[in-house]
């Protein structure tokens, strides 16, 4: 499979490279236009549209995924650099029909309105809990500040992260 970058292509074929990575436990090998972001690879070519494109500049956090267990902005990650990497997206958090505890907490706490930032919030929250930065609402707010919510659901987002961390 040859994967384009979504950019206007200049004259002639743009340089591309093969890359093998694992996405939500499934091994994938693709040839990507070098300019392709991980976010575009996920959304446009793997059909994993849970990760959202907000700013496409690393400023909003809607595209947050885990790479080798660490939360990153997939919009600023070049797919070509991910040889051997393990990527987890929002689609990979649930265990079959069993939602991830943080996904369930977002529902229980009513921690979203429009939902656009929610996949990024949840994946980032999973990272935040793993990193152990959930000691207080203040700490959660600081360590979740890379995820913007235009609906302003912060109070409930913080509550969902705090409750999930407390259940661990």
């Amino acid at each position: 499979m040859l994967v384009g970058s979504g950019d206007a292509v200049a004259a002639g074929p743009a340089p591309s490279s093969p890359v093998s990575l694992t996405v939500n436990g499934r091994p994938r090998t693709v040839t990507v236009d070098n300019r392709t972001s991980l976010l575009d690879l996920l959304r446009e070519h793997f059909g994993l549209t849970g990760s959202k494109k907000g700013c496409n500049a690393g400023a909003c956090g809607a595209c947050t995924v885990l790479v080798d267990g660490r939360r990153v902005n997939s919009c600023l990650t070049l797919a070509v650099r991910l040889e051997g990497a393990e990527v987890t997206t929002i689609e990979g958090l649930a265990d079959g029909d069993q939602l991830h505890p943080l996904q369930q907490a977002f529902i229980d706490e009513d921690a979203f309105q429009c939902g656009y930032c929610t996949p990024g919030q949840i994946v980032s929250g999973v990272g935040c809990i793993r990193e152990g930065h959930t000691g207080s609402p203040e700490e959660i707010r600081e360590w979740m500040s890379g995820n913007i919510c235009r609906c302003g659901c912060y109070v409930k987002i913080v509550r969902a992260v705090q409750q999930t961390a407390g259940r661990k």
Partner: protein
Amino acid sequence: MHPFSYTRVSDTGEALDAGHRGGRYIAGGTTLVDLMRETVERPEVLVDISGLPLDEVTVTERGGLRIGALVTMAEAAAHPKVRTLYPIISQALELSASAQLRNMATIGGNVMQRTRCTYFRDVTADCNKRASGSGCAAREGFNRTHAILGASDHCVATHPSDVAVAFAALDARVRLTGPDGERQVPFADFLLRPGNTPQREQSLRKGELITAVEIPAHPRPLTSGYLKVRDRQSYEFALTSAAIALHIRGGVIREAKVAAGGVGTVPWKLPAVERHLVGERPSAPLWAAAAERAAVGARPLKHNRFKVELLKRTVERQLRIVGGTK
């Protein structure tokens, strides 16, 4: 984004070869990829150095600290040696960017990051840093966040890093390797003021690679801290900031290391403040008098006059916090 070819290197020699042939090094990529998308950066060849063995934090023989260029901001901030020996570095790092970006961005890349000047990032605007000789739209434009210190007629953009301010205060050195071997450059000489050549931002030779940032040993006890003032509480660049380290023994300040961020075209050392502190006993009037010297030489622009007073107050407040006198 312009097309580019991509190569991954596994040792420093390979990297230097590729760099010498004009390849552009990429580590965390958080600045570079962003600016490539805006076509501000248009490298033809990206050299991925993330596999190089430059990812360790070590204590030097003399008790200083060496942070490998590829240590991520998150790893450096969390490292026990950094937290114990130079907590000011952890503090500056954790007040920077977001958790996601700190997981990606590296120490070497942090120092190399480019300005957040909106005119630099907008390819339709005049910018001498991006397009030499085109002019500076910021000088007469919306320049609220721009520099009050170290600017020239050609450029008024600030250096955006927080940790670089701590590095400057602590007299860090940048370790480099290149085609002609290894060398060290004092941090204060590594980042360049714009002068007549704002497009030239570091004293790097062609193909040179940062291998580490090294902080020399400082006399102990050392109390230190980083204060950042910004438009929102988190995930924002500094309007002003102050990195301060004090060595106080027998009730007297023996050494003072002070630098400011958000105000200069490079991390701004404040030697006049340092001189006023050394040999004195901590007191509220001392902090005020020293901080009064923080903005020496400031030349504010139309929209950033507030930074002159804000800088003095930032330094005074941080002296009070670090120095421990109310």
